[in-house]
């Protein structure tokens, strides 16, 4: 089934400016899904594991799509990806890497660790909005999703 507009999107991003601009872009491209933000790798893993206050799945639902930056405090984007792979309940999680770097080695590593897509943050807001718009079309209207398991995963 297609992703419905109530599915949660998790943005893992440490730069508050980029968070702000991402929210703007999503709005501009008519993606009205609820957006949750984790500001570092550790927090992202806690969120997905349902640790601490994230155990409240009503307030912090398991997302259907994750935008993941690579350069993060504490645990990097790669660490998060690697961890996700170890979680059976997250094995169909859609992770889209959204990062500044276009380095070949980062792209390779991201795919190796299970990222479904690799996007480079565009320099202008307009371009970001366009990117989100095209994502909206692809993910919402074409890509088939599966419903994530809303139970807290057996996380380490």
């Amino acid at each position, binding site marked *: 089934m297609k992703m419905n507009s109530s599915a949660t999107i998790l943005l893992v991003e440490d730069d508050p400016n980029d968070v702000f*601009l991402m929210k*703007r872009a999503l709005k501009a491209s008519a993606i009205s899904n609820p957006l949750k933000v984790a500001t570092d790798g550790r927090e992202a893993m806690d969120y997905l594991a349902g640790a601490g206050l994230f155990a409240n799945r009503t307030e912090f639902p398991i997302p259907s799509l994750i935008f993941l930056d690579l350069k993060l405090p504490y645990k990097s984007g790669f660490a998060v990806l690697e961890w996700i792979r170890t979680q059976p309940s997250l094995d169909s999680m859609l992770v889209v890497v959204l990062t500044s*770097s276009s*380095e070949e080695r980062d792209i390779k590593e991201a795919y190796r660790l299970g990222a479904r897509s690799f996007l480079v943050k565009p*320099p202008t807001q*307009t371009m970001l909005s366009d990117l989100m718009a095209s994502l909206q079309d692809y993910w919402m209207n074409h890509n088939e999703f599966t419903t994530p398991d809303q139970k807290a995963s057996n996380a380490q």
Partner: protein
Amino acid sequence: MSKEFDEEMQVRTVALANAKSILVVHKRAEQELIEAKKALQRRTDELARSLALMKATLDSTTDGLLVLDEDGQIANFNKKLIEMWHISPAIFSSRDIGQLRDFVAGEIKIPQPFALGELTNFNSAGKSQLLELKDGRFFEQFSEEQLVDNRSTGRVLCFRDITERKQTEEAVSRLAAVVESSDDAIVSKSLDGIIMSWNAGAQRIFEYTAEEIVGKSILMLIPAELQKEEPEIIARLKKGERIEHYETVRLAKGGRRIDISLTVSPVKDSTGKVVGASKIARDITADKKRQEALRESEARFRTELERLVHERTASLEEAVAQMEEFSYSVSHDLRAPLRAMQGYATALMEDYRGKVLDGEAEDYLQRIVTAGLRMDRLTRDVLVYSKIPRASLQLHAVTLDKLVSDITQQYLQAKTEDAEIAVETPLLSVMGNESFLAQAISNLVDNAVKFTFPGRVPQIRIWTEGIQGQVRLWVEDNGIGVKSEYQKRIWGMFERIHPQTQFEGTGIGLAIVRKTIERMNGTVGVESDGVSGSKFWIQLPGI
């Protein structure tokens, strides 16, 4: 009367008888005289003949002969004597021994009283003497007293021109001196391997004296396990071959092993047949020790060098790794603030358009956005440029047809400007790196489209030509061209000819083209008259 007549008749009859017998005797005597004359003539002829033969014999000897009689006067001589001494006919026709003696003395370098005495002194037995002439020739003089019944009948003096013999003797003794004075062992042997000669060098090296070893077999000097070398050497010598600097081992007296370098040459007789061998053996024990020491020091040096190289490489690798870290940071960290600047300026414009912001405020904000964009492009280009020398380069065959077609396709899809790009296939293939080439060609196409006259549709033509094993790719445009005074400058870093307001760009595009092509062992260039378009080219090794 008749008694007288009878007596007379008797006398006359007796007289007649006597006369008859006298006549007979006379006739006999005459006959004998004729016979004697004939005999004499025969003898004379014989004598003449034997004299002529003797003269011919005398004249045909190679020696100059002078015969003196018991009085010391000139009895005979041969042509050779006159020739070798260059004696004038006047002196000889005088037959004066005194004149001859003076003349001869005059020809001798150091006239020895002894030599002169020889000519007339009959008391000395046959002896020989060496005469050195003023003209440099050497004569050997023999003189032999002629005795008949213990009485001297004269003396024969024999002169032989030994100049050549003397020169040969000198040359031989020089060579012998060379052989003797050589440090190397110089040994000659027969084809059976018997040692024929042994020099001082051989004695020094092998410790055998000449007496001990001449006549013995050369096998005495060869270690047991190498004995087969001898027949091999002989076989090659028989073919007339020479063996040079053959390193092997030989035995000195007492069995001590010596490292030697052998050179063996065939010795041939006058018909060219190989009759023996000459061996030169050089004791290379010291040499070998030196070589070994050299090898050891070389090995030490090499190890040291390798260690140094290893160290340097390690520190270089570290430096390179740091550079990579730096570039990596650049790609992440520098671009984030740009996005922020960008994003907020745009947000301002979008949210407050018409409210607080007037046209001018919007213009300022737009400039912030543009500047941010530019900064971002610059950062990215600098990053690309800085990676070029560090990237590990793999060269392979690149089919330009496909690459150029991909680039032009991408271009046409992505860009909004109208541009006509004509590619003249088939393009030749080159030896290079695909991603570097893609970067370079893209940049050239970008430029070709960008630097165009306002309002004119950019028309680009791409083709290749082969030049002596290399391939030149041309990118021709109908744009503004490049004046000759700028044609070198444009390839530099951050070089822009035109103002930013006319044509945007980072000034790194062509620097990237140049750097990438140069790393692939290629060359770049441009042809342009400065007004009617440009022809940029890159040249790489062909396949």
